[in-house]
């Protein structure tokens, strides 16, 4: 097994979960209703826990410890998709992003739970059950709001159109793609994307929303190789503020 390929995959998984976890936590105290405040805060806690599990696997492969990896890198050293770093916007945008992201993440976890690389298989076997709740939450709200009032439908549609190019960016392939597929680590990003499309279509069909034509949509690639929007560095600065003042602080 090529260790560089495994590390590349782990960084993508861990960074996606960490950055979206941080964005979700920005809803704490600001949710449109109490239950949603709790939901986004809980998903934040889950996702940051998931990133820790992946950073720990990286540490087992010789990378530095999880806190240092999470708090001391600059934006161009992060491998998350650009989708997860975008600001929360209003609730409709956060909800659409959550729907597009978690429906993809659960497929990755399901595939990886069968991985030939045992440490990833063990961790994702556990995490896929947790992400199921995130998917349930997203799908329920999209179904309810996506067929409710005119304003809700308009807002969700506009956010969907805005988020789709970034969502396609999640499936940016790495230079190790073929190797990961051939060695049975997982079926690769194209396979994740095909399954994702089916699942999100099945939900969207139950609403008044329309999925934009993906053939004419230019995906926002780059995130997997450290190319990010202007929104990531300020997020990292805020996330690492305490750590940078006092790396030994406990909170």
């Amino acid at each position, binding site marked *: 097994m090529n260790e560089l390929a495994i590390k590349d995959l782990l960084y993508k998984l861990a960074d996606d979960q960490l950055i979206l976890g941080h964005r979700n936590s920005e809803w704490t105290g600001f949710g449109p209703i109490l*239950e949603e405040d*709790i*939901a986004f*805060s*809980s*998903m934040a*806690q*889950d*996702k*940051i*826990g*998931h990133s*820790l*599990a992946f950073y720990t696997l990286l540490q087992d492969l010789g990378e530095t410890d999880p806190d240092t990896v999470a708090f001391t890198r600059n934006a161009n050293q992060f491998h998350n998709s650009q989708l997860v770093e975008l600001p929360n916007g209003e609730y409709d945008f956060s909800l659409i992003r959550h729907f597009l992201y978690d429906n993809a993440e659960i497929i990755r976890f399901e595939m990886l739970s069968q991985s030939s690389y045992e440490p990833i298989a*063990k*961790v994702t*076997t*556990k*995490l896929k*059950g*947790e992400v*199921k*709740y995130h998917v*349930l*939450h997203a799908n329920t709200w999209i179904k309810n709001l996506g067929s409710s009032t005119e304003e809700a439908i308009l807002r969700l549609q506009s956010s969907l159109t805005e988020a789709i190019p970034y969502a396609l960016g999640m499936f940016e392939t790495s230079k190790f793609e073929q190797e990961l597929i051939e060695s049975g680590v997982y079926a690769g990003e194209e396979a994740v994307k095909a399954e994702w499309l089916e699942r999100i279509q099945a939900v969207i069909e139950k609403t008044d929303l329309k999925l934009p034509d993906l053939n004419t949509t230019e995906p926002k690639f780059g995130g997997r190789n450290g190319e990010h929007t202007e929104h990531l560095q300020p997020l990292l600065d805020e996330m690492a503020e305490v750590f940078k003042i006092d790396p030994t602080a406990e909170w």
Partner: protein
Amino acid sequence: MELTKENILILLEEVKDPEIPVLSLVDLGVITGVTISDESHVTVNMTPTFAGCPAMDYMKKDVERTLDKYGITNHTVIMSFDQPWDSNKLSEKGRQHLKEFGLAPPPKYDLILDLDILEHAKCPYCDSENTDLRTPFGPTLCRSMHYCNDCRQMFEQFKPL
């Protein structure tokens, strides 16, 4: 006390989930193994309920403290995903304690989570099954919130996972 797996498990009955103080870690199902080497070194294997649960680190330290308290200082406590936790690992005694605490125990299931399983919760106060899932997230990562249409009260369920 003779150093055996059974005796260690009896000691660990003392260690409770800090967020659900009626539930021991043994009943919660997070103690996945106890081994004793020929040199009397005790290894306790643990696994988290939820990967992001902030209580897990506390529980691990509590296990270490409890072993120390009984003079078992030659020990290692390992937290890993080697034997991942699922809610079927809650013991019958644990389920009973949860119900008495006012938390609906998770239903036993075939480990294929679907909406039916998540929505199905039996009210811990009146045993009614006429209940609705209000939100899959609650005051801690392991709880969801439900409403009982018969006794008209909100209640929490320990989530099936």
